């Protein structure tokens, strides 16, 4: 417990909060730019069980922002390198790895084992897939996304709050929203955004502060300006949920 002493002395956490963290099960989908800081801080905080889903291998071009990895990891599966590094930081945390890409076939089976899902993916279609699976399974989804120098964070499907489809109802064509590989990205940007996602996970588990449900945090690293945009539930969500339940 000594390693957690500086957070246990916070009235918002305490020993009871630390026990809540130890009992929590969090799934991080995508072990890239966003996943790296999310995983590092959740492991350090003592979240009891963490799942990591990613079927990719470490590439040299990942290293400027995916700070979990080193040059000796290049070519190796991300989930195994991440597990190895994170376990050194905190051997008490149980880390389950899934060396696959999340898909319609495996999403429900994997997500069902966790309380909270973190979206650290890099493809727009997967964001919709994760959102719909979390709605179907009743799991909160801690969303983060980045574009060059800007980031977005929100918490979807939390206590009946809005979902990703309330923000962007219609799924765009895959090639219409470019990824980091196509666009480029400032290396520190996923650090800002991923830490904000880890913060939301801690707030959900520990029940302090205001969870970013119904709010979209928009951040610009060039100006250091940020805005909180209110998201209103659309009727689409109810219809979509009903369709999932009928199926």
């Amino acid at each position, binding site marked *: 417990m000594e390693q957690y002493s500086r957070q246990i002395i916070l009235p918002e956490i305490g020993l009871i909060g630390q026990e809540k963290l130890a009992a929590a099960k969090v799934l991080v989908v995508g072990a890239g730019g966003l*996943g790296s800081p999310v995983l590092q801080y959740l492991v350090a905080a003592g979240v009891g069980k963490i799942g990591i889903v990613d079927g990719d291998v470490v590439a040299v071009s990942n290293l400027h922002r995916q700070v979990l990895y080193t040059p000796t990891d290049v070519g190796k599966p991300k989930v195994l390198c991440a597990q190895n590094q994170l376990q050194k930081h905190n051997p008490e945390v149980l880390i389950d790895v899934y060396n696959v890409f999340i898909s319609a076939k495996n999403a429900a089976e994997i997500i069902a084992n966790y309380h909270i899902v973190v979206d650290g993916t890099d493809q727009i279609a997967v964001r919709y897939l994760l959102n719909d699976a979390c709605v179907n399974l009743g799991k909160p989804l801690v969303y983060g*996304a980045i574009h060059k120098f800007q980031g977005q964070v929100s918490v979807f499907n939390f206590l009946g709050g809005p979902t990703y489809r309330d*923000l962007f109802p219609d799924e765009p064509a895959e090639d219409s929203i*470019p990824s980091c590989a196509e666009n480029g990205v400032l290396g520190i940007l996923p650090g800002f955004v991923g830490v904000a996602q880890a913060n939301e996970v801690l707030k959900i588990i520990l029940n302090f502060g205001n969870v970013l449900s119904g709010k979209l945090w928009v951040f610009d690293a060039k100006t250091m300006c940020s805005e909180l*945009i209110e998201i209103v539930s659309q009727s689409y969500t109810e219809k979509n949920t009903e369709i999932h339940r009928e199926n």
Partner: protein
Amino acid sequence: MKINLYGMLAEAAGTAQIEIDDFNGETLGDLRNAVESKFPQLKNKMYKIAQNRKLVNENEKLTEHDEIAFLPPFAGG
């Protein structure tokens, strides 16, 4: 009327803030049409409109001092 653009909308328009001087419309939908007429490169882009930091539908009425932002989805992670 000034409009803040995010992400690839700002890149398409070449600026993070645009101004529509001769706007005579009433709703956010009218504003979208005016913006896309002046910046046709924004047509067919997906984005949501925030009015005074709240996402609203395009039937909402505009007032002179509203803060308007166009927000596209981001894919990167």
